[in-house]
Every structure is written in C-alpha cells, then in structure tokens.
C-alpha cells in the first residue's frame, strides 16, 4: 500500500495564456519521468485542437515522481482542468479530486476574471492554493504589483510565491518544493468501503470507457464489483492503473489517496458521469460524495451538412464524438431551408465551437450552423410548460401565457479606460448592474446579471473588440426570469426561412431585425429578380432591405469556336450555385446563415 503521506494531489489553475500547460510540462520534465524524445511540446494537451486554441478541453491527469530536498520520494498527481466557463462543472469535479492547487498568474497581466472564478472555486473546495508568478522574464513583468494584487484581491499570502519562467524553466524547483511543503497529503481511510470520485472518463475502442478517479477511501482492484452511485450502473473491474505521461500504466490496486483509472468493459461514457461516486457494490459506502449533478446542455443550435448527402456522415461523427462527451446532445431535425440535420445541445458557446471544429476538421464535414439558442421556458395558457430549444417550435402567441429566459451572473474584469464601453455593452445586452470592485487603480471587476441569450450571441467578440482585447469574462447560471420575448422571423422573397428565426427580447427586436436584413443583403448575391428581405414579428414587418435584381450578365465573346472554354465559364457559374441553399425561388449562400450570427461590428 502506498504511503499517503508521500502523495500530493493537485491541479494548476490559471487564466488562458498565463502558462498553465507550460508549467505542467516543466514540472513533468523536472521530475525526470520523461525523456526528451517522449516530450511533446505540451504533454497534457494531447488534442491538436487544444494546442492550437491554447486551451485544455478534457481534463487529464499524470502521475510523476519527485525526489524532494529532504531526500524522500513523492508521488505527484497533477490533474489538469479545463480552463473555460463552459466546463465549470468539470472544473469543479477536477478540483474536488485535488488537495491543493497552484495558481499561476502572469507577471505582466495580473489577475483576470477567470483566474478569480477558478481561485474562488478552489477555495470553495477547501484546497490550499499556492500562488506562482510566471513569465518574470518578460520585459513588462511587474511581480511586485502582481504579488500585491494577489494579496489584496484574493487575500492569499503571496510574499514567498515562487517567481518563475515556465517557458525558460526558471525556478521550477521552488514550485516543486512548495508542493511538497504546502499541499496537504491525502488522509483517506484505506480500510473503509470504496469511495472514489469520477473526475473524467474517456472512451477507448479496446478497453471501453476508462474512468479517471480519485480514491477517497478504500481500495479497488481487478475483479472488484463496482457501482456508480448516481447512475446505478454496475460493472466488474478489468484493470486499474495510474497515469504515465500520455499512457496508462496498469497496477495491482488503487488505494485511498491515489489518483488512477479503472476499466470495466463499460460501453458508454454516459454510465460514468463526471462527479459520480464509485463504490464497491458488495460493500458500499454509506453515502455518495457531494456535488454530483447531471450536466445539461445550455446552448442549442442546428447543425446541417452543407452537402445534404453527408447527413449520414454527420450522424456517425456525432455518435463518435458523444462516446467521449457525455454533455453533447443531439437529435435529428428538419429545416425547410437546410434540409436534414441535427439539433445539438452544448454546455456553452465554446463547447459548440469546439464540436463544430472537430466535425469539420476530424470528420471532414462542411457544416451550416444556425443561430445558437438557449432553453426558454414557455408557459402556455393551458398550464403546460415547454422547454423550448428551437425557435421554430414556439407555439402560437395566443397559446402563450408568458415566457422565461435563463439568466447568468457575469463578472467582467476590465481596465478602467474601457469601463464605460463595457458598461454600454452590458446595458445594450439588457444587463442589470450588480456593482463594481476595483482590483487596483487601473482595473475593475464589473458585476452584471445578464440574460444568457445575450451572451451566446457574439458577446465575447463584442467584449474583446470594445476593450481592445483586455476584458475577460466569467459567468454562472442563476435561474430563469420572466421576459418579454418575441420570435423574430426572416422572410426572403416573402418566404419565411426557418433556419434564420430566433427568439429575442421585444426591445431589441427592431435593431436586431434591421441588422440581420442589412447583413443578409450583403450576403445574398443578386439574382434574376428583386428579392425583398424582411424581418417580422408575427405578421408585422419590422425591417426591410432589398437585393436588386441582376440586370446584366451576358457572356458575349465566343471566338474561333472555342466552346470548351465557354462551357468552363458556365460550369464555374453553376458550381457557385452548388454552395447555395434553395429557399423558395431564392438561392441563399450557406455562409449567409452563419454571417447573421455575428452582427456586432462596432
């Protein structure tokens, strides 16, 4: 049995780009478990996509051995956490698997909204947080300021925080020693019934689901009959082990305090939900670990294959992605404009973008996406309540008593010069001001209560562009509020284009409708007839633009009987049409459906 006093389970928390992955790499390097050859540039992020975006999508873990200055050998379990608000629940479960956290703060940029959110979450989980000041090699580094900020804003003692450069490998020793000194060793009861927290799971075609867990009490080994306490799913353990760098290393047993994996020929990640408690079915623990919840999609949109014949491919791809992503939801839907596709549910906008990119990149699919929607609650006059995920399904207004929309509490960190601009933005997005805290002289934390549907609609882009990239955002769902919502329809050549309908607040409907019409006017090429583009609420037209008819397109020259060349020109013309969607008589380019998702171009 492993001596728990020599185990340190921790994670690294940081704002995007503050150097979390780089520090993780250095720690892994310094502990000497990996040869240079084994080192990929960033070991923890093993998906290409993650590396390109500089973010970590799925949490993973690695077990490393560190020989401390005291001569003792320590087992470090470094648990990686996703760094985005969409994956807050996953982050919270990863934190729950740790006993401490390293907080990485950029020596030049200081604390960001996301840093705060993650630190508070770590403190909520009773983790000991060790601040580390990174990037001190940058000319603009100002560690003293950042130390004061950490102490003032977060209230963490930071005077002895290691000042490091993960990039050049400076003072990583200092971090390792503090992990040994400051992060408490686990103190579970190895003789108690098995109680393990699932903090991630992945699907492997050979082993089935691989469950990542932290053992709180008891032990598990091959042959143990386990039970997931929330889902009730039972299985017999086939293998247990721990995490080498990028590989699974089987071992005899996992005991209290350890971090490792379990396989049990499980076919579906939905049976091994993050946050669930694994126990021994024959000797179960008295109660499950707290904090489990089933994560539900918050944002929905329609995904359609650009080429209708690829519907089957899209379905297969979604099925495969779902094997590894229990929070991805999809069901078939049909659009008059876009044909056969899927209504998909996501944890948030980033999750949506990641799935969309993976479908396009890994599965080579060309997609058309409809405007993302949140889940509205529709209270009907007959007492029925519907969760509405697709605007097209909104009942007739006469049947609607009232509607509610999801709200979020948002915290926006911004430098003082942009406070005005960001407050304007939040105001435009129907935000309710909830206060402002100054972090330091030049930076403030703005608090707003905002409708989620205003955030999923190009809010990030607007935030970045209005603060020249300096603002950062964090938010959490805080229930539903009654709201005057209307369905805005877009009519192209007097025909409603279902894929362009969306739900919007009555007050902003005019503005939104007007801008959508303007944008569509730019995107829809002229055709042989005049095309009115209208925005309507019910039967009332609130905005209109017109795409003028094409007047002249004559290919006059045809010389010396070079017919082949002429045909090529016509074929090119025809080819252009292929990328269009036929709605009534009008051909609408696929990118027009997407262009209306981003209208804030200030």
């Amino acid at each position: 049995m492993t001596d728990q006093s020599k185990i340190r389970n921790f994670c690294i928390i940081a704002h995007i780009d503050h150097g979390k992955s780089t520090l993780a790499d250095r720690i892994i390097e310094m502990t000497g478990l990996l040869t240079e050859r084994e080192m990929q540039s960033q070991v923890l992020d093993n998906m290409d996509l993650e590396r390109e975006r500089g973010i970590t999508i799925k949490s993973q873990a690695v077990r490393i051995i560190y020989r401390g200055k005291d001569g003792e050998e320590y087992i470090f379990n470094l648990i990686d956490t996703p760094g985005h608000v969409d994956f807050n629940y996953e982050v919270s479960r990863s934190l729950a698997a740790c006993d401490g956290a390293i907080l990485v703060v950029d020596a030049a940029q200081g604390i960001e909204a996301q840093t705060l959110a993650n630190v508070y979450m770590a403190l909520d989980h009773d983790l000991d947080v060790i601040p580390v000041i990174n990037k001190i090699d940058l000319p603009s580094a100002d560690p003293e300021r950042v130390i004061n900020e950490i102490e003032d804003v977060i209230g963490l003692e930071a005077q002895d925080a290691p000042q490091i450069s993960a990039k050049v490998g400076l003072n990583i020793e200092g971090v390792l020693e503090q992990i040994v000194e400051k992060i408490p060793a686990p103190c579970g009861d190895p003789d108690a019934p098995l109680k393990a927290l699932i903090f991630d799971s992945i699907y492997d075609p050979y082993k089935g689901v691989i469950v990542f867990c932290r053992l709180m009490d008891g032990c598990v080994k091959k042959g143990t009959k386990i039970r997931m306490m929330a889902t009730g799913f039972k299985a017999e353990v086939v293998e247990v082990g721990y995490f080498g760098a990028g590989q699974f290393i089987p071992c005899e047993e996992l005991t209290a305090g350890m971090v490792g994996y379990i396989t049990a020929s499980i076919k579906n990640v939905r049976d091994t939900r993050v946050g669930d408690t694994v126990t021994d079915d024959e000797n179960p623990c008295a109660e499950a670990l707290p904090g489990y919840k089933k994560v539900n999609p918050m944002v929905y949109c329609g995904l359609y294959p650009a080429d209708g014949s690829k519907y089957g491919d899209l379905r297969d791809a979604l099925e495969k992605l779902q094997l590894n992503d229990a929070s991805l939801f999809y069901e078939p839907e049909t659009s008059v404009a876009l044909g056969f596709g899927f209504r998909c549910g996501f944890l948030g906008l980033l999750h949506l973008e990641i799935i969309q990119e993976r479908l396009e990149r890994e599965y080579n699919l060309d997609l058309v996406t409809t405007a993302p929607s949140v889940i509205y609650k529709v209270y009907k006059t007959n007492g029925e309540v519907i969760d509405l995920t697709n605007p097209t399904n909104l009942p007739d207004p006469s049947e609607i008593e009232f509607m509610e929309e999801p709200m979020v509490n948002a915290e926006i960190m911004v430098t003082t010069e942009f406070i005005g601009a960001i407050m304007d933005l939040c105001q435009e997005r129907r935000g309710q001001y909830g206060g402002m805290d100054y972090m330091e002289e030049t930076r403030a934390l703005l608090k707003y209560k905002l409708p989620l549907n205003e955030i999923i609609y190009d809010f990030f882009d607007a935030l970045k562009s209005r603060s020249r990239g300096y603002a950062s955002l964090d938010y959490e769902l805080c229930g539903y509020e009654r709201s005057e919502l209307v369905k805005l329809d877009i009519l192209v050549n007097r025909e409603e284009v279902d894929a362009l309908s969306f739900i919007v607040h009555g007050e902003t409907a005019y503005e939104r409708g007007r801008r959508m019409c303007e944008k569509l006017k730019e995107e829809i090429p002229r055709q042989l007839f005049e095309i009115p583009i209208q925005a309507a609420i019910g039967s009332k037209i609130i905005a209109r633009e017109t795409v003028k008819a094409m007047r002249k397109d004559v290919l006059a020259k045809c010389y010396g009987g070079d017919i082949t060349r002429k045909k090529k020109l016509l074929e090119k013309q025809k080819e252009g049409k292929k990328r269009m969607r036929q709605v009534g008589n009008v051909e609408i380019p696929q990118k027009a459906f997407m262009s209306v998702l981003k209208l804030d171009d200030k």
Partner: protein
Amino acid sequence: MREKTLMPLEIYVHIPFCIRKCDYCDFLSGPGDRTRQEAYIKALLHEIRSLPHIPNHEVVSLFFGGGTPSLLDACLIEEIISNLKEKFLFSPEAEISLEANPGTLMKEKLKVYRKAGVNRLSIGLQSADNEELNALGRIHTFEEFLEGYFLAREEGFFNINVDLMCAIPGQSYEGWIRNLRTAAELKPEHISAYSLIIEEGTPFAQRKLELPDEDTEYRMYEDTEKVLREYGFHQYEISNYAKNGFECLHNLGYWKRTEYLGLGLGAASLLAGMRFSNTRDMEEYLACSRNAEQIRKDVQLLTKREEMEEFMFLGLRMTKGIREGDFMACFGVSLRERYGAVLDKYRKTGFMEYEDGYWRFTRKGIHVSNVILAEFLAE
C-alpha cells in the same frame, strides 16, 4: 441529289499575328516578324496537306481569324485558300471571311483577297472615338478605318462586318450610341457589338479602370438593338446584328453545332462527335504540324449528355432560339422531358418564351442569359 448526301463543314484558320497586342486581348496572338510569319504559314500548309480526308463533307464557310489575318501578305492567304480547295470540296456559295484591322487594308491586298475568293470582310473598328481607341491600345484611328472601309467597298466587298465594343473604360451611354450610329450610317451589312470583358492576365486586368456601371451597360446593350433596328439591322444572336440575308454563316454554324475544323495554332474543332484543339505552343506547332493528328490536344469525345447541353447553351444564343423538333431529331428524347423544368421556370418568370415550336430568350432573358444558360448544364 448530290447536295443532300453531303454534310456541311466549316473551316477556321487561325493567324496568330498582330502588329501590337491590344490591352484587353487574351486571344492566342502576338507580334511576329516576317520570317516567323512565313514559317508559320509554311507549317499551316503542312497541316492542311497532312489532313486526313473527310468524306461526304462540303465546306460551307471558311473564316480567317486572329490575330490580324490582314497583316499577312495577301498572297499567303491566297495560297492557303487554294491549298484548302485542293483538299476539300467547297460549296459554290461558301462564305469566306477574313478579319482585318484598319490600317492594314491596302488596295492591292484587297484585290488579291477578292481574287482568292474572300467574299466577306470583318473589320475590327471597336470604337469611332479616337480617344477610346487609344484607351483600348488599338493602333489605328477612326479615319484610317474609314479609308480601309471605302477601299474595300471600291474593290467589291459587299459583305462587310464592323466590330464594335461597348463598356469601354470611360465610355458614356451617349458615347456608345454615337459610335453605334456612326458605324450604322456607313451601312455595313453586319455589326458585331460586344461588351468589353476584362480577362485575367491582360494589361486591363491589372489596371484600375473606370468602367460603366451595370445600369449603363444594361442600357447600352438594350438600346443597341433598338438603334440598329432603325438602320435596318436585326439581332440574330446575343452580340450579332445583320441586314437580312447577311447573318454570318460561319458563326451560326458554331451555335448550330455544325462540324468545323480549326487549323493553325490553338484552333478548336468539332468533328465526328469530338472536340479538340491544336497545340497552343508555337514551337510544337512549327515542328509537328506535318502530322495534323499529333498536334491535336484535349481530344474529348462528347457524351450524349454533353451534346444535349451544348445544343441548349449554344443554340439559345440565337435570337430565333432552338427548335423542339430539332432536339428530338438529334437525341431521340423530347426537349420537355430533358429540360422541361428549367424551361418552364424561366417561361413563367418571363425570361424565356415558346412560340411555334421554338424556345428562345425574351428581351428580359437575353440580358441575363449567362445565368440561365448555366442551368442547362447537368449537375
């Protein structure tokens, strides 16, 4: 009864030389000195002599295009024609056209052309405005054109085409109509009126040009027909207008898919259900033209589907349109069965019309013919 068994054949001869390449031109042509020209004609004669026999055909038209065929020594043209006549059976009414540029037409040349059998001249005027001519990079003035034009009349050319170009950089609607009237008043038998198209790779494509806007271009095109009608011309094809009986047979042949044989550098052919083009590489042509079949490139045997497509997008260029019965006779499939949906769509919206067995563009349709023609291509 002899005529009935003979199939019509057209011949196109490419002369890829000009004094100076115009700034908008993307044809296979360029300057060439006398030695080069002579070498080329020699190669061309080799090609003609090495041509395989094409039985049961009668040449109904011969067209010298370029470049500037009138740049050559007239006796070279004469030699080409006499070689062709040795090789092929010419119809007594064969139309023999030659493209000429103003400034290259001399009395002696014209006499030789007549003698050789050339009975139609196509003169590239492009504009009656010397500033516009200059802007196009043309080497001649309107006055030089007049001189050549009247000389040709004196020498007995009673079938003359004048090429005009609209939508020239800086050209106004009024300027175009003025050009048109000036040309029409000279009473040529035929006027070709093209819109300038900016082609990739030409000097024009690199310049920032002040081109007439779409509405102006629309009016230019729309009123060309009206103005020329006043002078007794009728439009018979998208860009061609003629006095009665003076439609260019050679051009019509392309739209009717008459078989044609292209000779010379880069020249295209339609023969025995195949399309092909001669090499565009001058050195290869000079070296290999003795073997007419070896220099043929991009040989494409047309499928029935492709032939149907061509029938439509070529035939519909003629204002008379295409005859339903011809389609049936050619393909054994009814036109409606094959293209009914597209035709009906455009008839309903007023872009096409059907009358006495013919499908054709309406005035409204002809302006946007390109968009519609593309729809006759298969998916």
